[in-house]
């Protein structure tokens, strides 16, 4: 706890009045910002978000330093279930938590988004992919920081169409995220003159074996296999695609894949894959410095994109709180988010950026190619940069999102 002169004066006055304890406690409460990291601790997205998101959130708090208020970081496992996530969010807000952060798994994020708006708290999202968060479901209480399905679709989708991959078959996780990723990628493919020949939507998370869908993909005679899924599912689908020889007639587009997924596939099977991230630990001096600071706390691994997003967005939120005052920030989540949008962002993970009216954080996106085993110099040296989409082009144009906040 950081002791302030004002606290001491207030305490002294309270002591004189004979009500020391309740006053002190009330003041401590008012001076504490509580951030709940709601993430997947036990399922397929644990490595991509999970404990790493908690570590990076704590790092943001540490790097922000002491500026006259306390910050407390809580964590919970939403088990990728919207009902579980919604009830934790509700409970947290009722217990005085100010911010719910991270929330991978789009269906859970959409549920929590609604509650944050109802209760006028703050929803900082890094882990969820659906572009609907800044589209029809946008909210004055939410910032969507790291990436979204539109960003992934534009970068990976466009790059593959450019190299001649013009007919696509999707294997799609059958829930909000997979649907959004398939839709956004399909739109790009069609806009560039390509065709979508079909898709197979499989039950999430109950599917382990993808061979039946891979066979359908091959039979469709498409030349690109679009994987609109994530985590272990993507890994299993890629391993299956290699096994069934799909790479002979099709390019594989893993539309959402992170460093830990690449590690799980292995460079041997993964080399040459194109994928898009907004953060990579070895991108520049600042990302390397951040990685150095957190590596030991993060099981000796570099942070993935989603936890890096937690770092950036929590740091920026705390700057906004310091700017507007703790009391005002706690009183209205919408005001705090408005202040975040009014201030330019700058952090080690993403560099300088801005937040748009619809809650979309704007920064460049990077297309990476997975290295061959011979090119990799250390266990986490996995990518080479293939292309960069500049910040102003990386995300969906403000006017096209159908966000009610923008229209009004």
């Amino acid at each position, binding site marked *: 706890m950081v002791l302030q002169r004002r606290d001491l004066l207030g305490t002294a006055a309270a002591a004189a009045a004979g009500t020391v304890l309740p006053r002190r406690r009330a003041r401590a409460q008012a001076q504490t910002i509580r951030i709940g990291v709601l993430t997947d601790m036990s399922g397929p997205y644990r490595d991509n978000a999970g404990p790493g998101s908690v570590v990076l959130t704590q790092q943001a708090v540490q790097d922000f330093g002491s500026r006259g208020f306390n910050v407390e970081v809580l964590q919970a496992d939403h088990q990728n279930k919207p009902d579980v996530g919604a009830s934790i969010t509700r409970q947290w807000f009722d217990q005085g938590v100010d911010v719910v952060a991270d929330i991978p798994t789009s269906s859970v994020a959409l549920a929590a988004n609604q509650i944050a708006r109802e209760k006028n708290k703050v929803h900082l999202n890094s882990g969820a992919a659906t572009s609907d968060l800044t589209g029809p479901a946008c909210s004055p209480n939410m910032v969507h920081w790291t990436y979204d399905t539109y960003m992934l679709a534009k970068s990976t989708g466009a790059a593959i169409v450019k190299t001649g991959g013009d007919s696509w078959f999707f294997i799609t996780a059958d829930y909000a995220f997979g649907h959004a990723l398939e839709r956004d990628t399909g739109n790009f493919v069609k806009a560039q003159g390509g065709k979508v020949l079909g898709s197979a*939507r499989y039950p999430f998370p109950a599917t382990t074996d993808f061979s039946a869908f891979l066979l359908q993909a091959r039979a469709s005679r498409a030349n690109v296999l679009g994987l609109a899924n994530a985590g*272990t599912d993507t890994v299993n689908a890629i391993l299956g695609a290699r096994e069934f020889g799909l790479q002979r007639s099709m390019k594989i587009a893993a539309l959402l894949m992170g460093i830990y997924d690449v590690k799980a596939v292995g460079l041997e099977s993964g080399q040459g894959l194109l994928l898009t991230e907004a953060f990579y630990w070895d991108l520049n001096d600042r990302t390397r410095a951040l990685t150095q600071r957190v590596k030991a706390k993060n099981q000796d691994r570099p942070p993935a994109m989603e936890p890096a997003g937690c770092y950036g967005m929590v740091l920026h939120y705390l700057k906004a709180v310091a700017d507007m005052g703790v009391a005002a920030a706690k009183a209205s989540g919408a005001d705090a988010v408005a202040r975040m949008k009014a201030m330019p962002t700058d952090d080690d993970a993403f560099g300088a950026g801005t937040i748009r009216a619809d809650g979309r954080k704007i920064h460049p996106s990077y297309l990476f190619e997975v290295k061959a085993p011979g090119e990799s110099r250390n266990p986490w040296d996995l990518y080479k940069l293939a292309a960069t989409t500049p910040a102003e082009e990386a995300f969906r144009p403000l006017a096209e999102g159908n966000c009610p906040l923008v229209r009004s």
Partner: protein
Amino acid sequence: MDDIFGIPAPLLFGQLLLGLINGAFYAMLSLGLAVIFGLLNIVNMAHGAQFMMGAFAAWMLLAWLGIGYWWALLIAPIIVAITGIILEKLFISRLYKLDHLYGLLLTFGLALIIEGVFRNEFGSSGLPYRIPTELSGAWDLGFMFMPVYRGWVVIAALALCLATWVIIEKTRLGAYLRAATENAALVQAFGVNVPRMVTLTYGFGVALAAIGGVLAAPIYSVNPQMGSNLIIVVFAVVVIGGMGSILGAILTGFALGVVEGLTKVFWPEASATVIFVIMAIVLLARPAGLFGRA
């Protein structure tokens, strides 16, 4: 070639074959469950975790000791079976006289703990395990591209299922086992060490799960939750086949693999549900399962 129900025939044949391959995993796992339930009366919810341990044991043997796939196929199940035997001695053996529910809850708790420990240690993304070079490559069957390794899985599973069935139904040892489930006291009176036999049976059931895990390691990501998705389906297979029926578990495993495979073509969204719909129908019509004795 002609279409069948609007699906090109080659695609349909391919899916049938894939269904059989997945069915091989279901059969192998439900076999272990059926052996354990039939002879110990324990609903082994830790089976999925033990499947996962088999895959991890194979990975550890390769990554840490340089022991390859073929030896892993032998050593990994023995290691996992030993852990199973320890669990049986320490915990499960205390529950034989109690209701099924206690065994179910205990083994479910054990499964959660085991998966949690592996998740903490190895993360959730999984670890790569290469297909052995002897079994890499694929056959072009005309109607589909058939990886050699998947063919091997079916053959291995069939051989394993057949051997287990023969041991339990046709040998003297199997006769002792079956007799012990009917009347343990009487069998013990004939000089058979029943508690040891029961312990070893649990170990054998667990080893079957672990072999499944080793077979799965090269084709799926080796990750801590790899068994938990499968185990629910496998339980449905056992229930449909008839709890404790060995032949029922094998046949139902293959059959449901095919049904699930076909559902993936006609209505992929329902492929996780179809098995439970069948389970509900079977339970309504034959509460003891297709091959169970009421």
